[in-house]
């Protein structure tokens, strides 16, 4: 059994169902990419994993989230709270949402070690410095005494990751951790996170809208579209032989080296709003291959080779 196994996760907010029937699994030493456009439900899924849905008046309507053999959905919320930060950590897109602007970054990393690992002030500080080193933060002892506003965006994100690691978690959920950063810094942070997964045996759920990040960092991929899984499989298969027209279109949105001008088309239309999700295949209105079947029923998630695909007309089934 994998460290985290989610089955049939359905999230409700009021009378809406923004996420429906999502399965995913990630084990130690593995990076799972959760990819989709805005409105696909990827951040809500992350919040469910963290047990944070009550904050936005959301709830898990059905399905299970089994972490290390324990189903978190049928346990009291305080169990989830005890796991959060210690065994499951979150890295958000904007480091300033995780950092207190009026306390030194060092004190904030120290606090995690003291809270979750019961260390005294002295050993907490030593541990913070070691983590900052691991994050390749230069002059760690000087940075330890600085405030968030004195650091660059990339440095702040490194601090947030160090904070996430201070509880010595088994699972890290990273929600678009590099989106707000400069290009060269993005590459460094993604590389750093992948190294952490390999070196520490972490399990990482990496949420992104960028298929380039997926290709470079992930082992397996879950492609979400309008709250449902469109396709899931090993990263090599997803890129070499995407079966869902949406997956293929999403990959095609990134210009490749030497691509001729005028050949980038994107995906026509836009993700439907959750207030008017169609009953049929949710991608059908934007899909070039859609048939009458696609606008009358919702496809099931079926296995094709190493992947699972929710499409009536999957690409390359016989290939």
């Amino acid at each position, binding site marked *: 059994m994998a460290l985290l196994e989610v089955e049939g996760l359905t999230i409700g907010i009021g009378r809406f169902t923004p996420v429906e029937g999502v399965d995913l699994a990630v084990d130690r030493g593995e990076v799972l990419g959760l990819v989709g456009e805005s409105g696909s439900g990827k951040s809500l899924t992350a919040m469910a994993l963290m047990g944070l849905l009550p904050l936005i008046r959301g709830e898990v309507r059905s399905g299970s989230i089994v972490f290390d053999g324990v189903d978190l959905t049928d346990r009291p919320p305080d169990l989830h709270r005890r796991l959060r930060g210690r065994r499951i950590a979150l890295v958000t897109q904007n480091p300033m949402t995780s950092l207190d602007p009026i306390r030194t970054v060092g004190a904030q990393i120290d606090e995690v070690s003291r809270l979750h690992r019961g260390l005294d002030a002295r050993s907490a500080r030593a541990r913070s410095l070691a983590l900052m080193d691991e994050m390749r933060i*230069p002059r760690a002892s000087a940075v330890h005494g600085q405030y968030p506003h004195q650091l660059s965006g990339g440095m702040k994100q490194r601090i947030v990751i160090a904070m996430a690691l201070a509880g010595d978690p088994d699972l890290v959920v990273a929600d678009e951790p590099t989106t707000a950063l400069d290009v060269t810094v*993005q590459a460094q942070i993604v590389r750093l996170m992948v190294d952490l997964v390999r070196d520490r045996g972490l399990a990482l759920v990496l949420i992104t809208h960028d298929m380039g990040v997926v290709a470079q960092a992930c082992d397996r991929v879950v492609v979400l579209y309008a709250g449902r899984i469109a396709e899931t499989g090993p990263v090599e298969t997803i*890129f070499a032989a995407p079966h869902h027209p949406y997956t293929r279109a999403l990959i095609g949105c990134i210009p490749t080296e030497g691509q001729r001008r005028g050949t980038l088309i994107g995906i026509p239309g836009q993700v439907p709003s959750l207030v008017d999700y169609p009953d049929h295949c949710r991608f059908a209105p934007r899909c070039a291959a859609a048939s009458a079947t696609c606008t009358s029923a919702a496809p099931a998630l079926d296995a094709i080779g190493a992947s699972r695909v929710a499409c009536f007309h999957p690409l390359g089934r016989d290939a």
Partner: protein
Amino acid sequence: MSDRPILRFESVVRDFSSGGGWFGERRVLRAVNAVDLKVPAGRVTGVVGESGCGKSTLARLALGLIRPSAGRVLFEGEDLAAQSRGRMRRLRARMQMVFQDPYSSIDPRWAVGDAIAEPFQVQGIRMSRAERAARIADLLAMVGLDPSQAASLPHHLSGGQKQRVGIARALALEPSLVVLDEPTASLDVSIQAQIIALLEGLKARLDLTYLFISHDLGLVRYFCDRIVVMYLGSVVEILPSPDAEIRHPYTRALMDSAFVPDPTRRQRLTRATGEISSAFDLPPGCAYAPRCPHAVQRCRIERPRLDPSTHPVACHLPLDRAGARS
């Protein structure tokens, strides 16, 4: 298509100062440092760089929204800083800007049609109600929106639709130069590709010149004819074509940082921890030297100048020379 520059930067410097209040020491930030640049008519010139490289300042200088601290910006041969207000307003009709967030400059209570027609009002162009409605409908259709959306309010629009409105508004006065300042940076990739395709189509149809500002070198290489690479206020390289051999180590680093959407080509990303230094305290030599893997003593002392070749680079040890030597 000619190489006649529609826009020229001549040794343009732009400083911003901060502090100098009651307590602070006055500090000067050189956002744009001695930039010489020609933007040829009918082409797409890309400006690429990371935060603080001066690309947005360059965009604002290009439109005369801010004045250079030294040097000149010439639009169709006329010095923007030397124009009267009336003349400047007439010139502005021919040069327009598309912003990353178009609604940062549009009243959110205005219907789409009013936002698109505002430039006519600013320019004092009188037209009948029917003419105005027809112009709005044409512009909406041109950017792929339904003319019925003229009555919509912006909060009913998606990010991609808002950017289409931003483009329609910029095109209302039939400009010859359009400065695109990160027009797709806050959009989903699928919508980004739509907008780029739209811009490509419009350029061909309307014979536009684009100055395309972006941090995404992959996108710039796809979309642009020439690429200007900036680092901390200076132009470090001008690629004469998108597939030209890269000469500057910084351009190389930008290239290597792009996430290639191919899992069989995993990049061995450099472990460099370096980040952009502050534009307040520029090092005396090459601004990139503190991060450059090839930097030698000379790079830390002497500021390299853009060489006058067909593929200009500001580097003491350009990659092609280094390659030839080894």
